[in-house]
């Protein structure tokens, strides 16, 4: 994977998260401070805790879900252009294919009720400790 040399953030929560992650870091250090394996391990444990482990979620789901959610927010051509910049694609058709596939997957996935209940509970827990303004919270409101 190519290194990311540019990232576009327009969410207040994401900016706060980035600032938080950058605190105390030295030049050259990575944001996560963990290895790929450690990241995946914790990610897997989180999925298991929410009973989501059999649904095909992987760390890359973050990018796919983020793009799909951003696209659902605004479907005009202008927003798609912004999305191409945010997602660091070179060509618009590629981004369209990516977004379409993501939206299809999101439409097809069925979550077990227990997992949804747990997610809702944890989301409430998160929101109580967070400010408003995330992309997801806008959709949920």
């Amino acid at each position: 994977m190519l290194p990311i040399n540019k990232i576009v953030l327009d969410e207040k929560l994401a900016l706060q998260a980035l600032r938080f992650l950058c605190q105390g870091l030295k030049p050259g250090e990575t944001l996560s401070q963990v290895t790929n394996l450690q990241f995946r391990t914790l990610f897997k444990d989180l999925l298991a805790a929410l009973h989501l482990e059999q649904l095909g979620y992987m760390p890359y789901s973050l990018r796919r879900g983020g793009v799909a959610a951003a696209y659902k927010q605004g479907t005009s051509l202008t927003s798609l252009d912004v999305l191409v910049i945010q997602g660091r694609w070179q060509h618009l058709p590629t981004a369209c294919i990516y977004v379409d596939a993501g939206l299809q997957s999101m439409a097809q996935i069925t979550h077990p009720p227990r997992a949804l209940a747990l997610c809702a509970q944890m989301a409430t827990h998160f929101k109580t400790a967070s400010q408003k303004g995330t992309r997801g919270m806008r959709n949920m409101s």
Partner: protein
Amino acid sequence: MATVVDNLRYISCSTTSVPCYDADRNPTPPEIDPQRVEEYVKDVHGEFIGLLIAMSHIVLPFSHLSFVMGFGGGFIVGSSVTVDPQQYEKFPLDSMDVVHDAIDSLISFMRYKFARMVSGNQKTASLELRMEFGRFGGMHVQRNDRLIVHPDDEPFVDRLFRSDFRPTSPLTSSSSSSSSSSASGGVSPGRLPQPVPNVVAQDDSCGPSGEQISFAPIDRGLDVGWPKPEASYALVALQFFQPQTKHHVVWAWKLAKTWNQVELPTRSTPFSPEILLGMAGQALKWKQFRFRCLLVLGFAGNSAHQSWCSSSGRRWPCHRPTPCKRQCSYWTAAKEPNGICFL
């Protein structure tokens, strides 16, 4: 208002590739002194892992199984310890979870054995175990990488593959269609000859010249839905560790090729905002503040997580809710700048 952060110095180059043994460049792995490994492991992880190694030396000779237990860069194979020299240097063995998961896998394999299911499910168990250890041991191959076979998979491959050959007859022209079922050639159920166990083990060859053998794990992988590249990796591993099988698994290769053509790529399921918030909330509950931020950042910034990870992570607070001794050593003080919550 969009904020563009150019050339973030904190986002460094991706380090998705785990240090692995490259079988193509160096077919003969150098010997590693087990004593040196034990000393090294004790230095890094203290007496716990050293004790684990010592116990494995005691237990393993009495077992009827060839246990393979992985712990990061090192592996215990039978009663000997081998370490990939590259991992030895680059993989600092700081992930205790590797040890835990390896032990869990080992226990599950023992359950297979004690439940007398191994004879029937030996292939299943071996495959699962091989895949587990393969992932931990460096067999996790990224999309654009070349095949990398870890030398410590050799006993697995050897044990697994010796009992999984059977002779096949070549495909007739009428049956060689492009569908995956018929493309299995000599492995389609209706045309399968009776299995001949240990074809390789009997005379350490593939039988008469020109005889073709099929490779049962490929068939099984097709049935259970392996990821696309897994069949090719398994076959290359087979030919590396069992050179006598070269040019004798033609039909397995044909099956793998057709499989790669017809099988749809597996893509990860995209997160919905609700699921993301649930994940972030769970991370918050486990006091994984940095991870929670990474989830938010990955979702909002459309980033892949490999861009943030480093090759040598530092210790972080254990997230598992049940405390135990082995996890206590994982704990370090969580020095988060703003206390519990960053918002």
